[in-house]
């Protein structure tokens, strides 16, 4: 009886192993500190126009492109079509300092030569946005629908879309181009729409995780409509406080809110691109 537990040592070993594995799993689970905005406000999208998430994902895949040069630069969103000329919107910083030629990879995997739109007011408006155009007579690409942020409530579902870069994502002359199987579709919550824009026009904050490469991709609402263009990640390298475009600094509480959020340029602020 004294040595009973020795006799069952195989069972004990197994039990210890199970406990160890469970303990390891539990400790490696990152339990996010749930702030008020992520946990509270079970906002039920009672809007009967809300789409199924799969449908929104499908829309995202149809309207999102890759923007390329010698390397993969970032993402873009198809916003306009005039005859056979398609207009793409992307972040200005995606092509900043990179000389053309730029190319676009569309959802069907095709590559098109693209050019910057010359009559673009974004620099004047101080928005981190640029327009590119490509020509296609063969295919029929979907155009993004535009949503209205005005009707959104804090905590409402949003989806950030784009093509995250892999490390050392370089396309050489001999590389084969990949289809967009790797489109990121990131669920998140609407955090805030600031009253005035930060530097370069950023105003829309949301919790979706945005990675390098997703700049120029869109933020979609629950109807699959574009409400913003991704540009800033939710994980800054250093803690430089953001500034408003007018040079002032947001309050500490706003700073805290936006330093942990991804930031986009609201589509309503760049209505001029649709003219």
């Amino acid at each position, binding site marked *: 009886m004294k*040595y009973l537990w*020795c006799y069952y*040592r195989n069972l*004990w*070993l197994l039990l*210890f192993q199970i406990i*160890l594995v469970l303990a*390891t799993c539990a*400790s*490696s689970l990152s339990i996010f500190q749930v702030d008020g905005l992520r946990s509270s406000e079970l906002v039920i999208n009672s809007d009967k126009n809300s789409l199924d998430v799969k449908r929104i994902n499908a829309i995202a895949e149809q309207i999102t492109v890759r923007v390329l040069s010698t*390397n993969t*630069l*970032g993402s873009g969103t198809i916003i306009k079509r005039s005859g056979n000329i398609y207009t793409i919107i992307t*972040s200005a*910083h*995606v092509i*900043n*300092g990179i000389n053309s030629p730029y190319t676009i990879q569309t959802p069907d995997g095709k590559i098109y030569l693209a050019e910057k739109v010359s009559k673009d007011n974004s620099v004047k408006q101080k928005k981190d946005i640029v327009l590119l155009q490509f020509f296609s007579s063969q295919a029929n690409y979907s155009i993004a629908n535009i949503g209205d942020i005005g009707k959104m409530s804090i905590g409402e579902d949003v989806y950030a879309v*784009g093509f995250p*870069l892999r*490390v050392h994502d370089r396309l050489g002359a001999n590389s084969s181009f990949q289809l967009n199987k790797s489109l990121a579709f990131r669920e998140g919550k609407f955090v805030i729409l600031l009253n005035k824009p930060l530097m370069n026009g950023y105003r829309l904050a949301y919790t979706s*995780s*945005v*990675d*390098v*490469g*997703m*700049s*120029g991709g869109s933020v979609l609402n629950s109807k699959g409509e574009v409400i913003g263009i*991704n*540009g*800033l*990640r*939710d*994980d*800054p*390298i*250093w*803690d*430089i*406080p953001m500034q408003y475009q007018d040079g002032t*600094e947001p309050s500490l509480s706003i700073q805290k809110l936006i330093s942990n959020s*991804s*930031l986009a340029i609201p589509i309503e602020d760049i209505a001029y691109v649709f003219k």
Partner: protein
Amino acid sequence: MNQKSINCVSTLTKFAVFFSVIFSLYQPAAVAGGTQFSCKTDTTEDGIIVPATIAKTEKGTETSIILWISRYFTASGGTPEARCANVSNRLQRYYDNGWLTYFKTDVVNNLGVICVARSASSKCLNSDVIVTLPPNVNRFQALDQLLKLQRIASSGKPLYLTDEFIIYRDGEALINVKVMIDRL
């Protein structure tokens, strides 16, 4: 000791060994204390591999901050490799102390510098210098470029600390014709 107790002790020992081995293997990932700065390598636009100061955020995003190409400071021991290591360490120290909040630019000993400032309005102190820039680098552009890298969701362009027109390859100084032509 009888045979049974020897068996018991040996079983216990096996458990103990097993435990310690497993625990040492299953180290939980080190709790990331924010951004980590380090000196690694990156490739310039000309395809040359140079030392680079890299920032890795808690989320795992890696960004090249500075590419060390200039040999201007070599005579005083400031090879690109040495400066890379030096500044990467400095950045880490400033970050860990919570000082990487306000970046400024100033001129010290006729050379442009980028430094941390304690507040938006205070001046740079010598002790707060992050990096001394080679003579040809415009300090305002350099600062601007550093700030831009903070959270853009695109690969961005690191700060190239070069010597104007001159690139070094295998110890030989070559004229960077492309740069020369671009600036004509």
